[in-house]
């Protein structure tokens, strides 16, 4: 145990003096996060703005009035201005309104008679997601009103009295649906784009950070110190173990710094420290387990760098380090088993208030990944530094 601590301590001292690990594991990812935030800042800012809507509606038309009144109640900030038909288009063109609606005369009568009716929508400059939502609401209103007209016509054909026809039309237009859709979510809350950026970059660079252990072992061989270490009165496995532990320590420290600093800089709250720490440790275990395979495959530091870079890029990109990845079937399952994806998903759960009990799935994915990697490392023939 004393020899293992001595090996580990000396390795970490050299890594810190070398400074490359600090640059590559902390400074570069922070800089990259900052650059990506600058480039994609607006795209990542998902705050919806106020939807300014100019509406031209015929006076005294009940359904047109109902439509206009429903707009401010859709859950967004909607600012409705009623004006004349000519002014509506001018407002949209000038940018005073992001959306203009022209409701034709005889709107209610046409709807109730089941006749075609055309509401004109004009998207102004800068119309964004908010305008699309308003348009979807208008479309929904028209669909229900149309359904109401069809129901009324059907009732009349069946000989229902006018009083009942009015009730039927009212029920179809405003009543709740008999069909209920129940939707589920994989977690209580997913990371917002900035949170996903910080978590993704932390996961990606974790893959690079843990590679310093393998590179350290190969550096020992290139320095000639590996021969001397193997002549020391200790189990040669301790040399490999110290490098893996070194990777683990560097991975935990670097990822913790990235998540903490990234969270502060980008205003992301990843949630309770304990489950976040558990996720970090499991992610580092999963990625460090890959170093056992690389140690057996790489004969030189160049080979190790190439293998580790390929693994980092494949797992990082597939895990959503740059943008969310999703897929169905086998592809979706493979993507789900990625430790980077599991860490990001876990951080999404903790950021939504999830605790240790809620992150069991991502934790099991990461530990399972580590177990499989270790199994592969056992059966891969050793042609690396220790061969």
């Amino acid at each position: 145990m004393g020899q293992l601590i001595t090996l580990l301590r000396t390795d970490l001292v050299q890594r810190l003096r070398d400074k490359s690990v600090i640059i590559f594991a902390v400074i570069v990812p922070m800089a990259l996060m900052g650059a990506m935030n600058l480039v994609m800042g607006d795209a990542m800012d998902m705050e919806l703005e106020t939807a300014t809507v100019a509406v031209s509606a015929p006076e005294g038309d009940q359904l047109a009035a109902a439509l206009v009144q429903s707009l401010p109640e859709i859950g967004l900030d909607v600012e409705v201005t009623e004006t004349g038909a000519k002014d509506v288009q001018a407002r949209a063109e000038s940018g005073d309104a992001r959306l203009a609606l022209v409701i034709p005369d005889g709107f209610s009568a046409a709807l109730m008679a089941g006749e075609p009716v055309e509401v004109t929508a004009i998207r102004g400059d800068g119309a964004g997601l908010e305008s699309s939502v308003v348009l979807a609401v208008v479309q929904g209103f028209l669909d229900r009103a149309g359904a109401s007209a069809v129901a009324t016509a059907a009732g009349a054909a069946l000989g229902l009295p006018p009083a009942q026809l009015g009730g039927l039309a009212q029920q179809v237009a405003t009543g709740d649906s008999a069909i209920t859709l129940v939707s589920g979510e994989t977690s209580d809350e997913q990371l917002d784009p900035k949170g996903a950026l910080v978590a993704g970059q932390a996961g990606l660079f974790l893959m690079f950070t843990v590679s310093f252990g393998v590179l350290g072992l190969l550096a020992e061989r290139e320095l000639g110190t590996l021969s001397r270490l193997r002549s020391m009165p200790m189990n040669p496995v301790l040399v490999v173990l110290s490098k893996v532990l070194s990777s683990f320590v560097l991975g935990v420290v670097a990822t913790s710094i990235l998540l903490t600093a990234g969270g502060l800089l980008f205003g992301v709250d990843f949630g309770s420290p304990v489950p976040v720490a558990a996720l970090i440790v499991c992610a580092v275990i999963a990625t460090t387990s890959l170093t056992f395979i690389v140690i057996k495959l790489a004969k030189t530091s160049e080979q190790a760098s190439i293998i580790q870079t390929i693994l980092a890029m494949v797992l990082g990109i597939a895990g959503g380090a740059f943008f969310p990845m999703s897929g169905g079937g086998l592809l979706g399952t493979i993507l789900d088993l990625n430790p980077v994806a599991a860490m990001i998903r876990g951080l999404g759960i903790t950021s939504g208030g999830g605790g240790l009990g809620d992150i069991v799935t991502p934790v099991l994915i990461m530990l399972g990944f580590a177990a499989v990697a270790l199994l592969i490392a056992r059966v891969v023939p050793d042609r690396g530094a220790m061969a």
Partner: protein
Amino acid sequence: MTQTAEQQKHTSTGQDVLVVDGLVRRFGDLTAVADVSFRIAPGETYGLLGPNGAGKTTTISMIAGLLEADEGSVTVVGQPMGPTKVAPKRHLGLVPQDLAIYPDLSARENLTFFGRLQGLSGGGLRARVAEVLELTGLTDRAKGPTKEFSGGMKRRLNIGIGLLHQPTLLILDEPTVGVDPQSRNAILESVENLSGEGMAVLYTTHYMEEAERLCDRIGIIDSGTLQAEGTRDELIRLIGGVDNIQLTAAGDTEAAAEALRALPPVARVDADRGRLQLTVHDAPTAVAQIVTTATASGLQLSDVQISRPNLESVFLHLTGKALRD
């Protein structure tokens, strides 16, 4: 292998620090070491002398437990050695041919690190590190990173690490390769002092002068096989007390060589780019006849040198090639 009487006597002592018995190591179709056996007694300095590629480093790698032997065994202080063995390695100090120090650490940190791995600790470790720094002349530079050291300083530290835990057996694998003359002499003096302190030393080299100066006994190795072993005098006796004469001349050296080979005192003649290397019996008596014959063969002599036999002669005699081939 040729064994001297003294060497045969030596094998029966039973108190050896190192016993190497029938070592064989193959790399694919190449047999790098073929049936090498020798022993080293306490306080003895044993030299493995051979050219590059002779199998010295492979032999040492098996002795130090870095490499598994295909056949044969190594015993250090009575304990079998192997890559996973721990106990025999406590008695071993290895100075690899290539530098084996950490450039970002200071000399003191390097020594302390390897001392801890050897089981030293506390005040004992600190005292021993100070002693070795003094011994290697690095006390004044103990705190600076070794990447700023000269080649000679790095070599001295490399040896100091091997000595740190005062091993029973110190293995030095060509420690003077690439070293300036001053540092080389300092290294040789250090090794001489070690044997005086009772440490057994296994020293590999392809420099004949180093083997002659340092080693109590010498094993001559070539093509993975131990050709002969014994003291310097015993080895020289193997070639029958012959001397060397070197002629430097202009003219047809090949024709002259043919004429010289016919002379009775001449045992061997090698011609090489204006030089003739002769192995002769009783050189002082034969030299006049040799010079006469060479001149008669049309050579214009510019220099004649007579030398007593040395390990180079022995190696040439045993293998048919020079040590530096």
